[in-house]
């Protein structure tokens, strides 16, 4: 069963193409990760799906509803943590759950929900005294009050310390186990990899790659390669004495392996050179490598691109 259907979705702000024709579907019970640096269009896309923003073009159906036109109806069936979730200062998580239950007109046991999001210990602490992780958990708790079948989590762990992030992951896994469909945006690669069934990497308003993490790596990764710690001189030697493609970057010689036997040729040339070389190993592109290729840069913990576009294949 399909929970979300998006096709050719567009949203422009003047000249800026925040979302530029993206299409995907999300199956019921799936965790679908939207991965990308800040400004990639993740939040705009998710807010259109939530019915908080109006689309400019394309089609969006969430649980069979048009989110903008049928927002009021849709909101009873979905749970949302907006980016940078915040709440009234002087309210405790427990009171907030009761408040939401009253607004939705549902009966819930606040303690059950607090337990589900691992927040029993801070049930009565005022919101402005909660830690970042506890605040996010409060947001998760509120998103669960109306027992939604579909959850939107917009950067649920941004700015949290590693322990708090892992605690949130645990909660999210628990929700998946209960059969909830979850749309997750993040700029943490490990988070997407840990939690998502499928990932869409967004960049500049478009989807650059989509599928399971393995599929994306297989499609966009370079395959296996041999890496040798050594000098530029050694790299040049191997290149001159074999048919292989050789790349050199900062003390690391990298040789893409068309077939496993290529490794032997490279090592034989290295031995022949009489030059010094250190550790050797073979590796495949990780999601990080693919991500860097696709978005032309690495993102820091705030989702900003920290490495400007560079040629990763700079030949030695």
């Amino acid at each position, binding site marked *: 069963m399909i929970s979300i259907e998006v096709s050719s979705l567009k949203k422009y702000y003047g000249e800026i193409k925040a979302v530029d024709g993206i299409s995907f579907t999300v199956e019921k019970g799936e965790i679908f990760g939207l991965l990308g640096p800040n400004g990639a269009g993740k939040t705009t896309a998710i807010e259109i799906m939530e*019915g*908080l923003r*109006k689309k400019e073009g394309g089609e969006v159906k969430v649980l069979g509803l048009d989110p903008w036109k049928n927002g009021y109806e849709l*909101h009873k069936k*979905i749970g949302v943590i907006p980016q940078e*979730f915040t709440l009234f200062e002087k309210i405790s998580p427990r009171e907030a759950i009761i*408040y*939401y239950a009253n607004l939705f*007109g549902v009966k819930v046991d606040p303690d059950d929900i607090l337990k589900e999001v691992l927040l029993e210990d801070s049930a009565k602490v005022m919101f402005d005294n909660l830690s970042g992780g506890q605040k996010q958990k409060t947001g998760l708790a509120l998103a669960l009050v109306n027992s939604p079948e579909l959850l939107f989590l917009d950067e649920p762990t941004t700015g949290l310390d590693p322990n708090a992030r892992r605690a949130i992951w645990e909660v999210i896994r628990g929700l998946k186990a209960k059969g909830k469909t979850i749309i997750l945006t993040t700029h943490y690669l490990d988070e997407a990899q840990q939690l998502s069934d499928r990932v869409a990497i967004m960049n500049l308003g478009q989807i650059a790659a989509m599928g399971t993490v393995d599929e994306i790596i297989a499609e966009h990764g370079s395959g296996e390669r041999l890496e040798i710690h050594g000098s530029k001189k050694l790299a040049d030697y191997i290149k001159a004495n074999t048919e292989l493609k050789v790349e050199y970057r900062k003390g690391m010689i990298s040789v893409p392996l068309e077939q496993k036997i290529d490794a032997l040729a490279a090592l034989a040339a290295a031995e022949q050179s009489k030059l010094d070389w250190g550790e050797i190993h073979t590796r495949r592109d990780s999601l990080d490598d693919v991500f860097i290729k696709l978005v032309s840069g690495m993102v820091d913990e705030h989702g900003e691109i920290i490495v400007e576009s560079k040629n990763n294949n700079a030949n030695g």
Partner: protein
Amino acid sequence: MVSAKRIAADFKVFSRGYLRNKFGLFFGLIFPVILIVIFGAIFSGNSSGTITVYTQNQDTGPFPSPQLDLAAQFVQALNGTLPDGTRISDTWPIRVELVDPSENFTKYLADHSSSDGILIPANFSEKYLAGQMVDVTVYGNPTSSTSGIVSGTVSGVINSFNLKYYNPDAIPILGIASATVNTEQTQYVDFLIPGLIGFSILVSPMFSLVNISSEYKKTKLFKQLSLTPLTKMEWLASKVLWYIVLTVISFLLMVTAGVLLFGAHITLTVWLIPFLVLGPMLFASLGMLVGTVTKNPETAGVIGNIVTFPMMFLAGTFFPISIMPQYLQSIAHVLPLYYIVEGLNNVMVYANYTGAVIDLAVVGVITVVIFAAAVKLFKWRED
């Protein structure tokens, strides 16, 4: 569809949050009472108290018998007491403070920052008994409001001494009966209470809603609330309700303070209720409107002040607009708060219900328009 349950849920959360915030509570409830106390104290001083008059009696005798110390009897009379010890009147306007005869009287008055003084000359008793002319000197500053009262009182006492000289048994034929007229009895504090109630009706809901609505927009709390079944109309309704409750509590505190501390004369009738309901509704909506149409909390604050400050001072809150120049009065007439303050005055002080109905009609129309505009323009979500 408006749901009373959701309004109640939001009301509960908002009021509890408000009560937990000591600062808001201070400004909502305590501050208006403090204003009553301060302004009441400042302006009730010269209308209700007796005037202290420094008096130097240079007639130190010697006297053949105490009965012949007429200077002492004169001083006693100035204090409002007859030779037999009875009080002339309960509301005698002056109280004599004797100054030692050795002091330089003019210098003494200056040193004590007093413009009112009475000097009784050394040979006062002797000359009076001999039937010779003797002058009592009354010091006064014509620009001071107390001077007339002091000289009037002194000449009254002198007249009765002149009369007694010719006929010690004389009883006055002409007297003054006093009657009070309602409007003339109105003290500053009577007027101040409706004014400051208007002030708190304006300030609390207005500032609070400007702040909340712009902050919630910035922190995206509105967006979050839009994901619940709560509607923006319900949200605003619960804020309005809370400020009505707060206004009624604050009204009761201010009236109690005014009556207990300054003996304010105030009428409490059901006519007050529509003003106490519409007022907070009007200014909560106006605050909401300002927060909605501005881009960020900083701009909202500035615009909020621009809208609020003229009303705070020109709408008849701290002083009657009748003492202001005509052009300022014209400005006052376009300020919504003016009609609330005038209405409260009409109901609480003047019992002028015809006037109050007109004020109420004006306030009602403005309130409905502003409330509707606030609900209409206020956006949960963006396009």
